[in-house]
């Protein structure tokens, strides 16, 4: 297990574009825009990192591995390709944590409601990565995966108020956003960042999103 983790981690570090979009970009946006953008802005940058990992980085790697036969090749050895999946999820989670840590270190410090923030972070990241697994399963190859992922991710960013603050969105978009997993994730991260308790309905949407996407991913995931 440790060797797969080591090798996959090295491969991840060799992917400069992914590190740029999941760690450097959110951090730079925070450093350059943070002061003007409001107190919950670091939480939005956390979400940007988690969304990018879940909808582009993770599905691309897994769809490529499946399409090129990396998973098939592994299934001829005594080690199950399930380990690659587990290791990929772990690595993407670690990158999300590192990115979030850097946002705290170079931003305005820790979230005011740290336990609440951590709960929301773990639940929401798990739900979004489960959605990413579904995309990895549906994408025919590694080139299609980021395209499909982006086609899902950008609307999610919009309805969750990343481009335009939520209060300026039309009512119907706000309602869609409230059930989109990404929307409640953004709001709960923001709430806990400024010291409030996470709202129960937000946590419920995240939990339901995790269960539904997780079950769907298990059903549709293909090894070859």
């Amino acid at each position, binding site marked *: 297990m440790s060797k797969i983790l080591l090798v996959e981690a090295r491969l991840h570090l060799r992917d400069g574009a992914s590190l740029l979009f999941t760690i450097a970009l959110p951090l730079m946006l925070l450093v350059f825009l943070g002061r003007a953008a409001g107190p919950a802005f670091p939480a939005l940058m956390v979400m940007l990192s988690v969304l990018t990992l879940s909808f582009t980085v993770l599905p691309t790697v897994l769809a490529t591995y499946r399409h*090129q*036969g990396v998973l098939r090749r592994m299934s001829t*050895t005594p080690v199950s390709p399930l380990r690659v999946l587990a290791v990929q999820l772990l690595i993407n989670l670690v990158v999300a944590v590192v990115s979030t840590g850097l946002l705290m270190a170079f931003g305005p410090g820790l979230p005011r409601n740290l336990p609440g923030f951590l709960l929301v972070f773990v639940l929401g990241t798990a739900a979004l990565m489960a959605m990413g697994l579904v995309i990895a399963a549906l994408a025919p190859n590694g080139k299609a995966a980021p395209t499909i992922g982006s086609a899902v991710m950008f609307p999610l960013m919009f309805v969750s108020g990343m481009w335009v603050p939520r209060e300026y969105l039309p009512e119907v978009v706000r309602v869609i956003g409230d059930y989109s997993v990404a929307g409640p994730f953004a709001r709960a991260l923001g709430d806990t960042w400024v010291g409030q308790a996470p709202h129960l309905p937000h946590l419920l949407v995240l939990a339901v999103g995790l269960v539904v996407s997780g079950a769907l991913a298990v059903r549709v995931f293909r090894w070859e």
Partner: protein
Amino acid sequence: MDMKVIEVANLRKRYGDHVAVDDVSFAVAEGEIFGVLGPNGAGKTTTVECVAGLRTPSGGTIRVGGHDPVGDRAAVRRILGVQLQSAALPDKIKVWEALDLFASFYPDPADWRALLDTVGLSAKRNTPFAKLSGGQRQRLSVALALVGRPRVAVLDELTTGLDPQARRDTWDLVERVRADGVTIVLVTHFMEEAERLCDRVALISSGRVVALDTPDALIGGAGAAQRVRFRPSAPVEEALLLAVPGVTGVVRNGEQVTVTGSGDLAPAVTLALAERRIVPAGLHIERATLEDVFLSLTGRSLT
């Protein structure tokens, strides 16, 4: 009898309405290079995928070292090293990392540094997979199939897409691996490759085994004609040549005589000529190939 390390009996595999493998039976003896030869789409890859436990057969039985590949996956994966036709590695993984990683999957792996030397990739140990040539990728693939010290290595379409030099290098590698005591199942649609490497060959067409024997026996066998062409140093009667065992026809073309037949044709003909003190000048032997055997058995071409 030889120890059978793989036994396949009446294997059948269907995908919906499509029957990929209809009825395939063969046994592979410990230490041999066994060829599975047939055109694309004959069911070769499906057969070895069933042997490797990657697919569940629709019918028949398979035993690898006495184990069922589906029921006892773990045991079969320790015995079998598999090089798959369409299985790559991540683009950015380095040669040594791939070997080191795959070695970690097995309880008692080979020393991958020595293996790297065997396949001639020591100079490429730090090269990422994406930067390797086709031949280098195939050799790495063979090394990965061997890193778990398998008793049997399954090599699927090993030399497809390689240039002639890389192909010959890969053949040498296969022979060296066998010399180390590894049984090899070689899946191919190149008759030349099967003739050169295999101790025994199963010819597969439309999901069935149409013939199974040594390449020599297949070529010498039914319907596979050979031709011997020469210019006799003295006139020779047709009756003399037709009396030689195995000869089926004699054709004269000016000074040149062409004898067709089967079996050990060339030695038999030259011996009969020598008894009359006739020297066959410009002796030319046209042996049938496995391609001809396949064509005569199935009416179809291999490629």
